[in-house]
């Protein structure tokens, strides 16, 4: 393929990357938004490279295949796997045979690999990846039916490969179209490795079911997850724990910004998250405070106030979600190392998406302040003291059954439902449950 001037120009463009997060990947990948050479995109139709971060066993493998096939040519896949974990072919029988770049461990230079892949694709040095699925319509339809299009009568059969949606009753007395679909797991706002089975009427969710797809005991790629797993079994410096916590909360805030269309602010939050993970120098809490000011100025809080409240008392018993509803529960209060640092709990009131967003940012800032104090003193967290992960107190996580969340979202707009799920930052139990360990 001759390399024209257009191809050379296109090779220098910011690489559009679609991030597909599997199991054990937490909120990894969002930090790439801070890199100027990359552009994280919402739809694979814009992307040239799909970054498959984590482990893709179970239902995640077919989902990754579907998304991979939806990219336009020229395209490539880059794997980001846990160091020492299984190779890409092992967790997905029938995995893509086309050679793809693999980055091992959270420390790998993913950004450089993505940029190189894009350049090679457009220079013609790397062939575009073929489809993972078979080239067939969802249902065979050619030549069948009244006009050869597969349909029967008014709305029957499988015209052009799929049936038409039928009607169903709704609250306001009209019987209009009812569409059922499995959305996710690679949508912005959905919990990690979770598929949402939704029944829509218009844009309103009539019924929602959240189905985790993660395989238990998947290898962990996200350094935040790994750090908190480690803290359950070994003494860990408080400074590192708190920096990991700040990093996670900043990543969650970046996801919320991304959902709200504030790409640039999401990139800013992502660069703060990356800084929080960088090392002893870390990030100045004042920078997080500045981000909080921009959050207030962006009217995102006004937009999300009143969204995502739970009827009656909040079902959360621990974690940032509970503290955002006014419940003063934090496992760090029971840890003498934290008490010695002067730990003070941060609590919001309201229990809506707005309160949760403010809570996460406040906790990120507080965690950075604790980290700098702990680094001076050299405080250490011992495994026999209670541990507070970013999702709640270990080991049960303080989380709530996904059915409760799904039931509360029935009747909401889809965009409100996504905003609620994004602000809740739910993690499937497999990630925080002890791997067969005795209490």
């Amino acid at each position, binding site marked *: 393929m001759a390399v024209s001037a*257009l*191809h050379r*120009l*296109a090779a*220098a*463009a*910011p690489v*559009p990357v679609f991030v597909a997060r599997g199991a054990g990947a937490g909120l990894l990948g969002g930090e790439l*938004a*801070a890199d*100027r050479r990359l552009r994280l*995109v*919402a*739809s694979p*139709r*814009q992307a*040239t490279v799909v970054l498959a971060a984590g482990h893709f066993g179970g239902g995640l493998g077919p989902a990754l295949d579907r998304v991979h096939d*939806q990219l*336009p*040519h*020229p395209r490539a896949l880059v794997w980001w796997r846990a160091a020492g974990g299984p190779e890409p072919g092992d967790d997905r029988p029938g995995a893509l045979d086309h050679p793809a770049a693999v980055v091992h461990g959270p420390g790998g230079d993913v950004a450089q690999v993505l940029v190189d892949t894009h350049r090679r694709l*457009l220079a013609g040095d790397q062939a575009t990846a073929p489809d993972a699925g078979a080239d067939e*319509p*969802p249902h065979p339809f050619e030549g069948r039916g009244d006009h050869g299009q597969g349909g029967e009568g008014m709305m029957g059969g499988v*015209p*052009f*490969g*799929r049936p038409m949606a039928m009607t169903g009753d709704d609250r306001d007395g009209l019987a209009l179209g009812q*569409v059922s*679909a499995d959305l996710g797991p690679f*949508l*912005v*706002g959905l919990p990690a490795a979770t598929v949402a089975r939704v029944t*829509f009427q*218009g*844009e309103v969710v009539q019924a929602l079911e959240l189905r985790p797809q993660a395989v238990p005991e998947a290898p962990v790629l996200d350094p935040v997850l790994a750090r908190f797993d480690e803290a359950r079994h070994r003494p860990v410096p408080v400074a590192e724990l708190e920096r990991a916590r700040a990093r996670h909360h900043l990543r969650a805030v970046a996801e919320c*910004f*991304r*959902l*709200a*269309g*504030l*790409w*640039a*602010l999401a*990139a*800013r939050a992502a*660069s703060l998250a990356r800084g929080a993970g960088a090392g002893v120098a870390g990030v100045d809490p004042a920078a997080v405070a500045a981000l909080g000011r921009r959050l207030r*100025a*962006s*009217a*995102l809080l006004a*937009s999300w106030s009143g*969204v995502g409240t739970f009827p009656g008392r909040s079902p959360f018993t621990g974690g940032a979600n509970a503290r955002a509803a006014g419940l003063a529960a934090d496992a760090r209060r029971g840890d003498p190392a934290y008490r010695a640092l002067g730990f003070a709990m941060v609590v919001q009131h309201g229990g809506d998406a707005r309160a949760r967003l403010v809570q996460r940012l406040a906790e990120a800032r507080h965690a950075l302040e604790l980290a700098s104090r702990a680094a001076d003193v050299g405080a250490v967290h011992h495994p026999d003291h209670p541990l507070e992960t970013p999702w709640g107190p270990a080991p049960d996580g303080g989380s709530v059954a996904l059915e409760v969340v799904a039931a509360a979202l029935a009747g909401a*707009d*889809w*965009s*409100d439902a*996504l*905003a609620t799920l994004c602000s809740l930052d739910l993690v499937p139990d497999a990630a925080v449950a002890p791997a067969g360990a005795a209490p």
Partner: protein
Amino acid sequence: MSPALHADVWAAPLIVGTVLAVGAYLVAVLDAAATRVVAGTGLAPDVLIEPLRRAALLVVQQRVVTERPDAASWALAPAAYAGLAAAGLAVVPWSPSFSVADVDAGIVVWGTVESLAVVAVFLHGWSPNSHQPLMAAYRYVAVGLSCLLVSMFVLIAVALPAESLALNAIVDAQAGLWNVVRHPLGLPLFAVVALGITFWGPMDLADGADLSGGTSAEASGSQRLAWQGARAAMLVSFAALGSAAFLGGWHGPVLPGPVWMAAKTAALLALLVAAGHLVARVRAERFVTWCWTVLLPLAFLDLVVAGLGALP
């Protein structure tokens, strides 16, 4: 056909096309610059060539179709949207003696442009036969219709002192005092409805991130390039209309008229593009309610103020 008419038939599209092309490039540069500044990744000269690189990538990429799209409408939507932007720009005056289409009822042309723009955006979301674009299209129509109404009241208020619906006369009537000072509510309301109808920034309900890019979720390659270009063109046309109707058009000391028009258009563009990166997307239902219960009464107030001011 007379030779003069022959020349005009070629010159009109050339002028409008040049303005829209330069304007669309400017929108892309401003967008890239605003992203870098707000994200803190540092402003650099390569922000000038980044839009060209991204456009080249879209030209090179394959255009993927969905299973059973409405191919004709999908192709028509960006063309119609760009055509409407061009029609709107054609009626905007650039100097006391020159506008591409000196129409007696330029405000009515703009009413048509805005209404049909809502249809074009809806078509773009309906055509791919995919769930997320469809939801985005329907959601956008509610916001588009509400903003349409407010924009028409605001533009009619501007026509009152000029005693004419022609944009030329409206600019002439601002010789003493610009409309942004005479009816202060006008420009803020106009900025909100411009963002709403062009679904930019806070009102990006048609191409929003919560629906994976909304109506553009299935658009790739040349389809995407055409749509982004048409969106930028519409933003430029709205900015030009705003400059003519509120910022005094070609009035200004020292420099010639077209230069002032270009400067004011660029300033409005910068404002609209910056809003996209600093203000979060609104909730559709809440915005529609707010539009009907707050913005529309404010538009009535603007009309009354304009009317009282215009009476001798």
